Structures are given as C-alpha cells and as structure tokens.
C-alpha cells in the first residue's frame, strides 16, 4: 500500500516540565508517529489510550534531547496523547498520522544512535531501509537558545504534514525542533541534514524508518522519477505531446 500522511500534524508544547498532552485524532487502524525534542537527556515515552507505543530512537547531546516513538493500528477518534520525558524541563512534540503501514511491526529497521555535535549542518547518523517502500522520519534540535532559529531540512525531505510545518523556531523559551520525513521506494542508506541560520551550538538528531504494508505500488517522488520529480514529469509530458 502507498504510505500517506493523513491530516494535519499536532504540535504539543511546553517550555517547562517533563510532559505535555494534547488531543490527537486518528482513523482506527492507522499509525501515529510522535517525534520531537526535550530540554534534557531524558527518555521519550508516548501514551494514548488504545494505542501501544514503542520508542524507536531516543538520546541526547548534553541537555539537548530528541526522541521518536510510534504505534501501529491506533484507536480511532479524538484521544489524548501524552508525551513524557524523564528529567526534562520542556518538551516540543509533533504527532503525525500515517496510512498505508502494517497493523503491527511497522518499524522497518533499527535506528542508529542519536547523533550529536556542534556547528552546522545538523545531520543524523545513517539508516538503511530493508523494505523498499518505506517512510523515514528524522528530528533535529539545534540547541541554540535563540529565538528565532531557522532550521531547514535538506535533501528532498519535507517537514510539511497537511497544513502544518513541523518546525518550532523558538529555542529561547521552548525547544526548537524540526521533524521531517522522506517517502522512499528503494532500499538505500540515508541520512537527513538541516541548515540552521544561527549556527547550531550543541545539537542532537534522530532518525527512524517505517515500512509500507505489503501489496500495491508506492506513489512517491522517487517513483515519479526523481530527478524528474513533479516538474520533470511535466516536462516529460510536454516532450511526449510534441
């Protein structure tokens, strides 16, 4: 089945404390991914009544922490999601709904360790998908302490989920973070990187990959012929019409 982002991402955010909660709507049987950043080196745990979450990647570089958790086959309707980070003092989390994933065992490959360093660009460690049709998620916390901090995903990855840009620029009061994804149709080793306009001083980044349910063809930019892409596809159509 083709993987698709469903609806708008939900941002839950607090500049203090260890946890946040928010109402997250979903269609029963879809998957939810919850990724983001915390101000400290705690764990990343997600709950939502009726769902079973696995923390797929979690770690920190000093006091800048990141995490991504996922649940297949989630409960339908508007249900409270809670993201709890041990020892944190501030959490910014995005919840994204996905269709086209299996109803169990959605993680395609184990994530590498959280990456952390200083300076730019911010980049994740590499991760290779086992299943050709898959979706990668990655998140970056720049740790600048500056508001605004502009973080831009590179390499064709997108941080748009519905009408929402999964990007918090305020790293002074809350946790700045960018959550991006890439839908793929071939196996390869991939990393994600971001630019950061004020220079990331002590950043952390994480990456995870989830597989498509068996059956059906994937409709992805890669299958549409990157580097042709949408623009290239239109050019090809023009050539064929001539």
């Amino acid at each position, binding site marked *: 089945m083709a993987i698709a982002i469903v609806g708008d991402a939900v941002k839950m955010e607090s500049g203090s404390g260890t946890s946040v909660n928010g109402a997250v709507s*979903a269609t029963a049987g879809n998957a939810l991914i919850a990724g983001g950043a915390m101000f400290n080196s705690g764990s990343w745990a997600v709950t939502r009544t009726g769902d079973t979450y696995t923390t797929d990647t979690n770690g920190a570089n000093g006091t800048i922490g990141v995490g991504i958790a996922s649940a297949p086959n989630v409960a339908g309707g508007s249900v409270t999601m809670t993201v709890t980070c041990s020892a944190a003092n501030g959490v910014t989390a995005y919840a994204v709904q996905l269709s086209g994933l299996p109803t169990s065992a959605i993680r395609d490959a184990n994530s590498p360790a959280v990456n952390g360093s200083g300076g730019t660009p911010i980049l994740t460690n590499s991760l290779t998908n086992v299943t050709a049709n898959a979706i990668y998620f990655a998140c970056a916390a720049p740790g600048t302490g500056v508001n605004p901090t502009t973080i831009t995903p590179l390499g064709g990855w997108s941080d748009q989920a519905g009408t929402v840009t999964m990007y918090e620029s305020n790293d002074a009061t809350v946790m700045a973070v960018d959550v991006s994804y890439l839908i793929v149709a071939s196996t390869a080793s991939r990393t994600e990187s971001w630019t950061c306009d004020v220079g990331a001083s002590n950043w952390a980044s994480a990456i995870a990959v989830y597989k498509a349910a068996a059956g059906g063809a994937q409709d992805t930019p890669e299958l549409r012929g990157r580097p042709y892409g949408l623009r290239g596809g239109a050019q090809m159509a023009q050539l064929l019409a001539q």
Partner: protein
Amino acid sequence: MAATVFSFPSVVVGPATIHSTNRTLPASVDVIVLQLSDPVGDWVNPANAGGVFRYGMEYSEDGGNTWKGLAGNGIGQPVGSLNKDGSLPNVRIDWGTGLVEARNNPCRLYASCTPATITIGATVTVSR
C-alpha cells in the same frame, strides 16, 4: 481571526482537581495557548517547592457530561519550574486535529496541586 483571550480568575488549587466555568471555543480556532499567572507569588515561593502541579484544558462533545483532554502539562510539573527563559509555564497545542472536535463546544480548565496548596491564575489565548 483575531486572537481571543479568556481570562480565568486566580483560584486556590490543592490536591483535589478543580475546574473552571465553561467557555465555548470559537469555531475557527487552530492554536490554543494556556498561560499560567502567579498573582501572589505562590509559584515561585520556595516554601511551595516539592509540590506537583497539573493543569490543562478539556472539552466536551455531549454538553458537559463527559470531558476529553485538549491540551495540558501531562503528568504535571514541579511547583516553581519555569520555562527556559525564566517565564511562567504555558502549554500550547497547534493545528491539532483534535481541535476540530473541540470547536464550538464547551471547554474548561482543570488544575490540581499535590501536596502544596497554591493560588494560580490563567489565561487562554485562542487564534488561528
């Protein structure tokens, strides 16, 4: 839509969960920010350290018989904790699909504090 601010008078919050009066969420809201205020300095008073404060906003789709969480600070946080820049705590939910269910419906705040008892105020800013 211009931002709408709901102000809630300061109240004494103890271990028993209390609720505000109901307000109706506007039909076009996409962003909610729930901001604490500290009118008498209880939040930053070291004598109250050790307390765990839990607060948030919930909504009802059946006229107030049952309530669902909309935004909050989850399991709670220590009394006296501040944002990274030293400002008072707030929680925010953006563009949540759950907001669709809450629109045009009654909403209320909830709060509890264990074991301390403190006076806290709050404002809720809704916008799109």
